[in-house]
């Protein structure tokens, strides 16, 4: 934990610059993927451009942006899983180990939320186990979108050819064909890919609310983490903080 002591208040670095960049790129990519993904599923506006069909690519651009966003999300997902294990700043995977202490802390964070902050018996200066699990859930949902999305993509490359070589469709088939059989065919894969979007939106809704709620009730400036990387915590006077 890095921080600067100032009386009883300590500023704590919770997100280095790189993590904040990842956070906002991830947000933008998910936002773009949702907007374009809904259009792909059900085109909700007509192309009113006065050009012949071959000269405008409204669906084409929606699909392109969706895929570019997916690439960004997928790369960030891989980076995130790497950082979970090998980050030099903080390794969230440690918080995911189901030790007795972590289970207690997890329940304490929930108790804090459901007692509306009347009970707070954990150290909010660092990543808590609840948020560690909650963030992991997002990455798993994004990973799931990666598998189902690539399955929906690869069947258009049925020829086995791609601009980067035959290995790419082969790899996608090898990695994602389990989704075809697991969800009862292509329509089933569409279903879960579409539905998982809603799960991600619900995840975002709770995440934003929870960070605002923490900011309001804990008074530790949690919402600032995503922007400045730091929050403040109170430290009782004593040898630990001096």
């Amino acid at each position, binding site marked *: 934990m890095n921080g600067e002591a100032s009386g009883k208040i300590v500023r704590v670095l919770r997100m280095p610059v790189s993590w904040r960049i990842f956070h906002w790129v991830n947000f933008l990519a998910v936002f773009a993927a949702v907007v374009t993904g809904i259009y792909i*599923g*059900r085109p909700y506006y007509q192309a009113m451009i006065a050009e012949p069909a071959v000269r405008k690519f409204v669906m084409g651009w929606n699909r392109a942006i969706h895929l570019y966003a997916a690439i960004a999300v997928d790369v960030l997902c891989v980076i995130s899983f790497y950082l979970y294990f090998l980050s030099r700043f903080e390794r969230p995977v440690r918080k995911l180990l189901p030790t007795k202490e972590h289970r207690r802390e997890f329940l304490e964070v929930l108790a804090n939320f459901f007692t509306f*902050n009347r009970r707070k018996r954990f150290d909010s200066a660092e990543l808590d186990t609840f948020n560690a699990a909650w963030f992991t859930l997002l990455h798993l949902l994004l990973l799931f979108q990666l598998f189902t999305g690539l399955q929906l993509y690869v069947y*258009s490359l049925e020829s086995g050819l791609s601009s980067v070589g035959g290995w790419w469709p082969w790899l996608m088939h090898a990695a994602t064909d389990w989704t075809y059989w697991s969800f*009862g065919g292509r329509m089933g894969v569409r279903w879960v890919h*579409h539905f998982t979007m809603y799960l991600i939106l619900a995840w975002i809704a709770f995440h934003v609310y929870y960070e605002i709620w923490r900011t309001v009730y804990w008074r530790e400036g949690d919402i600032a983490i995503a922007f400045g990387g730091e929050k*403040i915590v*109170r430290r009782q006077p004593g040898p630990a903080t001096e």
Partner: protein
Amino acid sequence: MRVIGKREVASSSSEGFVARTGQEYEALRLRCERRLRELEASEPLNQVSLPSLLRDRGMSRRSFLKWASATTALLFLPASFEKLVARAASVMNRVPVIWVEYQDCAGNSEAVLRADGPTIDELLLDVISLEYQETLMAPSGFQAEAQLKDAVETFRGKYILIVEGSIPAEDGFGFNGPRGEGFLENLKRLSRDALAVIAVGSCASYGGIPAAYPNPTKAMGVWDIVKGKPIVNIPACPMNPANLLGVILHYVLTGALPELDYLLRPKFAFGYRIHDNCERRAHFDAGEYVERWGDEGARNNFCLYKMGCKGPMTFNNCSIIRYNDGTNWPIGVGRGCIGCSEPGFWDKYAYERPMAGANIPVPGLFELGIEKSVDILGVGLLTAAGAGIAIHAFLSAKYGKKSEEAPSSAPPKEKP
């Protein structure tokens, strides 16, 4: 093109060789030559001769050569194979075929026999030694059964069994013949001695419409029942006779079944999506869609995606070879594809409404439509999340305690 199998007829295993280079095509040509010489030396099973049949129906040699050229292209063979394809067509009467019908509407038989012709494809299906076909044959009852028995014994292990219609696995459904033999037993018995089984139409391939929810007869496709035999599925509702002819011609020409995909469909016909070769594809990419039947978009041949077209999810060659001798096809007449060559199409694909508005009840989705159920569940989930957040925020405001209210831990407020 890829020929599968070193044996006389092989299944969709990975044995075989791929013909992509000039040398490989030359090897394939020699193989086909050898095969055709053997067939030409053998006795025809059916005395119908193709040249005389064509002459009788007023087909010119030029029409026949045009057909040979188109069929060579259909099978993804180079133009140098045209003569071989023409030769193969004339020895198709060396291949015994038994055609059985189960739970179906006879639409595939109709597709073969349709009355706008006759086309060369149809004439060729006359040339094939069709030993048994309930819709076409004159005998019935015990006579028909005797003919079937005779055909099975004479051509044991050599005949191609063509199956039309799904097979009910539920007791009490589907019997044929004077002895009332169940479809299931009938298929098991006939497939045992067959060289290969070709399932024509979606019903025989995957159960099709009879297998649609709630599937009262527990209808199944051939591949659910027949094991240990080479199976080719030629789905669609109905299948395109050109694809059936392509499979048989491929067998006559090479002695092997064509390369199949993971659903046992011949790749030459089902190796690409309708969407990728659709005449309205440019409108899809452009974002120009038909919104309602008969609207401005419909009058301008815009994309039918929003009207429920399943071309993007369906593998078939109807966007190229079309139906009724290339006359037209569903999207050509202004309605979307219903994905009839995909498994479970009736429940999952066949609605002519915007996908998100479809309301086809399917099992496990609370009687909601496929796409609609996602949106209803998803919006419900978001609403629940929003409501939960609102309730929590309200209770926090009413009963919550901000940390600064704890005298021991709150930081002092800065005085102005």
